[in-house]
Structures are given as C-alpha cells and as structure tokens.
C-alpha cells in the first residue's frame, strides 16, 4: 500500500476499505509478504512495540460494528451485555480471525476477561494472554509489577515468532511508535485548531486504520493526509466544540459519528482507538526499553474508566481536555452495558457540574442503525449552547 501524494479522498477510501474488510485481507497479505505472524489485541493499553519488535504485526480488534449480524456469537454471552465480545466471537467462529496467531486481552472489564477465558477454551492451539495492568502507580510497586509483565510478554512474543528480540530491536520499535504517536498528535491538534478542515468521520477512519496497518505505513498515511487536507478548501461551520467521552472500547457506528457532526457539533477530542495514542509523550529510547515502557505507562497515559484514580480525581482529566481544546461541552456516549464507562459517568458528570461545563449523555451499540433520537438530543444540546450559552 503506497499512499505517497494521495488525495484526501484516496486516503479515506483506503481507510474505508480497511474498516469494511472483516476478512483482514491486509493482515493476510502482510503475513505472506513478510513470512510473519499476526497478533490481535483488544482495547486499550497494549504495548504494541513488543509485538512489533518480535517481527509480528499487532492488529487492534474492535468488534464487527454494524457489518456483521451476530447469530452464533449470541450463544456465548448474555444477550443484554455489550456487543463487542459477541461480534468478536462471531468473527472467530466464522473463521475470520484464523489469520491471527495470537491474541492479547488487556484488562478492561469482566466481559473481556471472560472473552479471554473462552478463547483459551475454544482455540487451545492459539496463543492467548490476559494482560493485567498495575493500578498502583508507584514505580517500586506498580512499575516493578508491570516491568515483570512486559518481560513475560516479550518472552512469549519471541517464542511465538521464533525470533530472538534484542534491546536494539525494541528501541527501534519504540522509535517507530513514537513517530506514529507524534503524527497522530499533530492530526488531533489540527482538528482542534481547524475542526472544519478535519471532519471527525475522516479522523476516525484514519485512527481505525492504525489498528491494521504496519506502524510505519500508518505514519506515512497520516503524514500524507495532513499534507493533503491542509490544502483542501472546506466550508467553515458554526458548530459547537465538544469532547466525546466513553467510546474507548466498543465503537460507535460510522453513521452515528456522522449524525453527531451533522447535528451541529465539532468533536475536538475523543477517547476512541486509544491503542494508538494512549501514551501522551514519547517513550525514552535510551536505556532499558521495557523499563521505559513501564515508566511511560505509569506517568504519561490517558485516563480512562479502566484505570484507577484516587478518590475525587475522576473527571479532572476530562476537564483538562475540555480546557485544552476550548470545548464548550461534553457528550457522554457509552455502549449499552459498558460497566466501566457507565459507572464512571456519574463521577465525571459531578465534576463537570462543579466546573460549570455543560454535557449531554446517551447510550449506543455498535450495531445501532437508527440515530434520530440521538441526533435530536445532541442537536438540541448544540442549539442550547449556541443560543443560550447553557443547557
């Protein structure tokens, strides 16, 4: 895939193809071309650098969206829970995930923990690992624990790939992911500065491509997009600026993203596809790379519902985002039955109330098809801020 000098339309079409391809043709081609293996991972905090350093392709999996009817997958989970584990199982038992040689299930909620257990039972021949993360952020406690976890993961990845992984290879992978995170930050900064220039629909698809593409290829794609979109002439809109919160695991359907934009909102910050940007600063490339990755996780990581924060601190990260992006309000969107997002929401809302920041809230599922009510809700929210300055 060569994106050099591509137009915005071409880049977005490429992203749409990747997004719509539930057979993971790119992954299969990559494996063939590189005679390598691919490792799938679920959201959020997966150290992709380690998979990459072992010569394998890390691939972010975020369910099947509204592209696949869940039939068999419903037999494995309660019907009332979120969609992402059921569509992931559906993809697996319909052989769409056969191209993955291993799977990583980071701790995010009980449902994903159960999914990892099922995986081990259903696909015993495949590597599967449930990854726990420290909730104590003192270097000598949580840092040491996470460092040990990364050592185990590195050994596992080396065994799976059949290659020895040197520290230099790890450092090189960290460098490549640092570059990727830097261009993604540039993309987010551009959207925040000129939201009419970078529609969220496009930004989202580019972020989803980060799940699939080899990291250097994705970095080149983002650079191409930044170059191309800056010369686009796009109409300015009188929309309100909002932060979208709660979409860190099961993803909203594309039509919902479009509906939010069309209801008069510029999304200037969000928490989707965090796998590619959960580290807020460049990871150090001198010294022990695993220690550096562990230290970065402790210090410079986006806050989500899956990460412990001391009493009273919930919401302050969100308020910082609102201030940094000059947002006028927050839209809480959470998948139905997303325990982490929905349990965190009241604490965040309280913090927003104290800070006098308006918000509105709704739930969705990845297979939702009707958004009229949500559009009316967010449209009214946007109008209230534009015309009355509050809700």
């Amino acid at each position, binding site marked *: 895939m060569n994106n050099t000098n591509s137009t915005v339309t071409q880049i977005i079409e490429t992203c749409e193809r990747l997004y719509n391809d539930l057979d993971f043709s790119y992954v299969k081609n990559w494996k063939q071309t590189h005679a390598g293996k691919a490792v799938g991972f679920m959201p959020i905090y997966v150290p992709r650098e380690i998979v990459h350093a072992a010569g394998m392709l890390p691939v972010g999996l975020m369910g099947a969206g509204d592209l696949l009817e869940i039939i068999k997958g419903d037999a494995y989970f309660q019907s009332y829970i979120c969609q992402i584990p059921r569509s992931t199982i559906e993809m697996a038992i319909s052989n769409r995930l056969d191209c993955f040689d291993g799977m990583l299930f980071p701790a995010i909620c009980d449902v994903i923990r159960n999914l990892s257990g099922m995986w081990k039972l259903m696909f015993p021949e495949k590597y599967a690992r449930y990854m726990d993360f420290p909730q104590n952020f003192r270097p000598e406690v949580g840092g040491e624990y996470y460092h040990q976890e990364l050592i185990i993961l590195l050994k596992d990845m080396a065994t799976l790939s059949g290659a020895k992984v040197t520290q230099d290879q790890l450092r090189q992978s960290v460098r490549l992911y640092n570059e990727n995170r830097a261009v993604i930050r540039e993309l987010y900064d551009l959207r925040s500065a000129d939201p009419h220039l970078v529609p969220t629909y496009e930004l989202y698809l580019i972020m989803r491509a980060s799940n699939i593409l080899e990291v250097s290829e994705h970095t080149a794609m983002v650079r191409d997009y930044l170059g191309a979109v800056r010369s686009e002439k796009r*109409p300015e*809109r*009188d929309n309100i600026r909002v932060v979208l919160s709660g979409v860190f695991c099961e993803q909203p359907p594309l039509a919902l993203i479009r509906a939010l934009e069309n209801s008069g909102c510029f999304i200037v910050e969000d928490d989707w596809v965090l796998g590619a940007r959960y580290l807020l600063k460049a990871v150090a490339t001198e010294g022990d790379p695993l220690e550096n990755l562990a230290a970065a996780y402790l210090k410079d990581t986006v806050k989500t519902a899956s990460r412990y924060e001391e009493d009273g601190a919930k919401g302050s990260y969100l308020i910082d985002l609102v201030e940094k992006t000059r947002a006028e309000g927050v839209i809480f969107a959470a998948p139905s039955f997303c325990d982490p997002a929905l349990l965190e929401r009241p604490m965040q809302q309280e913090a927003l109330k104290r800070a006098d920041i308006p918000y509105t809230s709704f739930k969705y599922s990845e297979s939702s098809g009707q958004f009229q009510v949500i559009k*009316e809700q967010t449209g*009214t929210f946007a109008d209230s801020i*534009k*015309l009355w300055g509050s809700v």
Partner: protein
Amino acid sequence: MWLDNLFTVGIDVGSNSIKSVAMEFDTNGKTPKLLATDLNKIRKRDAKQVIRQSFELVLRQAKLSEGDIAYIASTGEGDMVDFRRGHFYSMTAHSRGALFLNPDARAVLDVGALHAKAFTVDERSKVLGYRMTSQCASGSGQFLENISRYLGIPLEDVGNLSLQATTPEMVSGICAVLAETDVINMVSRGISAADILKGIHLSMGRRLINLLRALNAEGQVILTGGLAANNGFVAALQELADQEKMEIRFCIHELSAYAGAVGAAIWGAFRHVKLRDQVA
C-alpha cells in the same frame, strides 16, 4: 435596504418540500424583516438540486447575491444543505419562527409530512418542554396527502371539504395501514368524502391534543408545518380542545409553513452578530 444591514437565508429541508426565506436585519441582528419566501416540493427530484434552486430563487426575489448573505442557516434535514454556515434543530427554529409570526403564542404545534411535535416556549422562544408523536405515519401530513390522492380530492380542497361534514367517521389513530383500511371500508360503505376527511382530521388531532395536554399548554397555540394550511384540520383541533375544556386557542398565519426557515434565518443573524462581536 440599508447597506449596513445584514441579510440571512433560512432553509428548512422537510421530507416533502424545501422552504426557503431571505431576511433583512439591522446591523445588530435586530428588527427582522421578511424579504422573500419559496416553497418547493421535492417530487422525487434530487433534494440537493431543489435546495439550490430554492436558495437562488429567494436571492433573486430579494435582489441579493450569495455574497450579500451573512449567514445561511439550515433546519430539518440540514446536512443536505452543503453550503450552510450553521444548522439549528427543528424545534429551535420553529419556536423562533412561530414567535416571529405570532409573538403572543406560548406553544407550537409543528405538523409536517412525517412527524408532529408539540412544544411550549417562553417569550424569548426558548423551548421549555416538548412531546413528539411516535414514528407511526398516521399523525402526519404524508398520510393525509395519501388519503386525498386515494379519494381523488386535491390536497388544497381537503380542509374546506371536511368543514362540510355532518357525521364524521373516525379512523384508527394509531396505525396508518389500519387507517387506510378504514378509509377503503368507508368508501365501499358509501360514506361521504367530507365525513371521511373530518373523521381523519379528528383522529389525527386527538393524538396531537394529547401531546399538548401532556405539556400543560395554555393560551395561543400556533400551528406550523404544512398542515397549518389545512383549515379543516385546524377547526378539528379546536373542536377537540373545546370538548376537552382545554384553555388553548389554535391560531395560524399565512406564512406558518415557513416558520422553520424564518426561525433559522433569525437565529442565523443572532449567531452572525455573536461571532462577529467575539472576533472584534
């Protein structure tokens, strides 16, 4: 027309028709004045082309060019208006337009081709509460248009004809399919068109009266949307409200169909001034 004055266009994209208005304001976005209106039925044409035609028509009527327009505001299915500056949700736009047409109204009943909404407003046109019909089409103008076609009666004659009814026959107020079956049965039983139409107006009206009752609406209720032009429907609403001893008075305006577009244009001027002053 003062050179310092500012001009806006409001475009209301409905499922059946496009309504556009051009308006003039003083430099502070006050003293709104309606310059031109256009109502263009979509009739299976490309909606975006119809929108453009309607926009250009009101510009010509108002003797303005696109460059003179400070703010192009959409409402309804506004994402169809590629060249808009801003979009206002339909209740926000209809409430402002309704109060422009009748400043004394404190509730609005917007009945369009597919949906109906009732909302109460304050003197600034801020929406205080709202109720909507569910998705069933029997509460909408499209249903009435279908029935008039089945009966072979021009839509514009439906209102006057229904006023001649003596013994109206009620139809299903819940389901358009059942209601259409009711109408077929009535035709085969020889019920007059006037009685059928009055019965339909009453059945539709009952659902809408329930919306207004849930809002505790009082005083003047202005009708907006396409159904406001149907005097038989308005009379049926008033009859139902009187039966229920509700303290409301339905009123219409010759420009009721343009309320959404007018409201969008007025809010557009408000936003233009606000954004201009922020920059200054």
